[in-house]
């Protein structure tokens, strides 16, 4: 009995250490990125492990001023627009699919859900051609459209399952009182769905903010580029001023981390409801 107890305690220590080491393997590179961003360029090369003698906060100012700021607006605008459109169109579709009665109801739902089976990579080349012929190539819309569209299936799936679980009584009495469909949808249905809409919006925000491939191909001018692509450019532009580049990486990474730390519950609800990886 005694020996067994020591054995199991040794296991506990081992498992705890394993997690500690793994957590270290995550925290260390990330903190290295932060520490490096505060070094002078000479320190960056001569003492990659050490701490900066004098924190160079101006790297953040420069990284934002000469690089990130220009891309920041594009990223924010494109992300907000994609979130707005994907949530709005998906809620509208979900409302019809869960409440209304018509022959092609299942077909309509499957048509939307079927989009989950088509990965964005498959459409890259033909979307590129399509966007050129629609004259949206190399504009903000070049990214807002695909980000919205490729989020509709999953967002509809999330919102629909939530709406199915809601009672219809309130809506029906509102109709009896003479409310229009628009009023019922915007004043009753949308507000009740707030929790799931928050989750769906966060997930869409995350994928749009971080998306790389479409942003690389569909936008050519500097003035429409988003942060992930901008960072690649900064690398060339800042030359070997690596600490400044590190500062830019830190700024871009912290946005999503802060968002997550504030809305952990909504994030996890959305992720686990469908197990779809961006």
């Amino acid at each position, binding site marked *: 009995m005694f020996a067994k107890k020591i054995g199991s305690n040794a296991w506990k220590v081992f498992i705890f250490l394993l997690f500690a080491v793994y957590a270290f393997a995550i925290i260390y590179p990330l903190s290295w990125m932060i520490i490096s961003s505060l070094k002078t360029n000479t320190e960056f090369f001569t003492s990659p492990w050490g701490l900066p003698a004098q924190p160079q906060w101006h790297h953040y100012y420069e990284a934002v001023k000469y690089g990130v700021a220009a891309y920041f607006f594009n990223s924010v605008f494109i992300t907000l627009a994609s979130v707005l459109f994907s949530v709005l169109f998906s809620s509208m579709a979900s409302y019809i699919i869960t409440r209304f009665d*018509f022959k092609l109801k299942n077909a309509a739902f499957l048509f939307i859900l079927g989009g989950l089976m088509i990965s964005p990579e498959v459409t890259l080349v033909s979307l590129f*051609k399509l966007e050129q012929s629609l004259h949206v190539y190399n504009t903000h819309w070049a990214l807002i459209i695909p980000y919205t569209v490729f989020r509709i299936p999953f967002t509809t799936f999330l919102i629909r399952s939530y709406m199915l679980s809601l009672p219809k009584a309130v809506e029906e009495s509102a109709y009896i009182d003479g409310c229009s469909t628009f009023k019922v949808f915007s004043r009753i249905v949308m507000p009740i769905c707030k929790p799931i809409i928050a989750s769906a919006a966060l997930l869409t925000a995350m994928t749009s903010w971080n998306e790389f491939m479409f942003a690389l191909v569909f936008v050519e001018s500097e003035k429409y580029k988003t942060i992930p692509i901008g960072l690649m450019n900064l690398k060339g532009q800042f030359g070997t001023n690596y600490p400044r580049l590190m500062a830019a990486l830190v700024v871009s*990474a912290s946005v999503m981390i802060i968002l997550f730390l504030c809305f952990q519950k909504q994030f996890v609800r959305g992720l686990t409801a469908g197990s779809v990886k961006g």
Partner: protein
Amino acid sequence: MKVYRDKRIIILYLFPAIALMALFVYYPLVQSIVFSLFKWASFSPEKQWVGFYNYHLIVSDTATFFTILRNNFFYAVVSTIFQAGLGLVFAACLEEKFMRGTQPFFRTVLFIPSLIAMTVIAMLWQFMYDPNIGMINQAIQALGFKDFNAQWLGDSNLSIWCCIIVSQWQYIGYCMMLDLVGIQKIDGELFEAATIDGATRPQVFRYITLPLMKESILVTTVVTILGSVKVFTEVYVMTAGGPGRSSEVLATAMYRAAFKNDEMGVACAYAIMIFVLTFICAALQLKLSHTGEE
């Protein structure tokens, strides 16, 4: 209610989603299939019908095609073991009583990499892999191996493995989070009953957690494989498929064909290969997670 049969409303509310899906998802998919049968360049209007010649071109370059498939295959196998497998073991460990206190900390830390843009992660790791200033070589040298000087991303035998490691680093915590929620949904009395009956912790995992998590494990496995088939960003940012074409995967090969070599037909053929593979995975996933059911 009468309003629930109003055709005008139905069409009005469904139209945006359906039309956008049709125009920007299904239509490009069909176009990809058609375009893969033509030889065409990005800025010339002419398209020459070549049948399956583009596919033939890809497959007949045996060495490259083999490398590409091998790389995607390695990606899938390693990701399944680490993300779907190890992720679950980690989740089970964190649910053990003695880890409960520290669970929120580890859970959050392990999850954080999956929130950061892959571009940022890939650029950070590029620095870590750097043979001269990177911390990996310096750490190994500091341990006493003074002559150690691996080229990592610059070594054609190691490059793909370097990319694979980064993906694991980024996503183990993500899969762990999914499994954690799954395990927390299991009735706690089952675990208690088994423990009272004298089951060891590994036995509890083997005979209670695993069977009850079966569906969730299948879903994470399929999602992971799906991700491995279409992997693009990590590889593109860190190696761009090189050195040579040693770390090429399907998506980077497609990108190279389309936007470097201007062989749009070949690129579409690659796209269709990705489509067939991902479609099978996605169909499996939908079936396993029962998303199509009420």
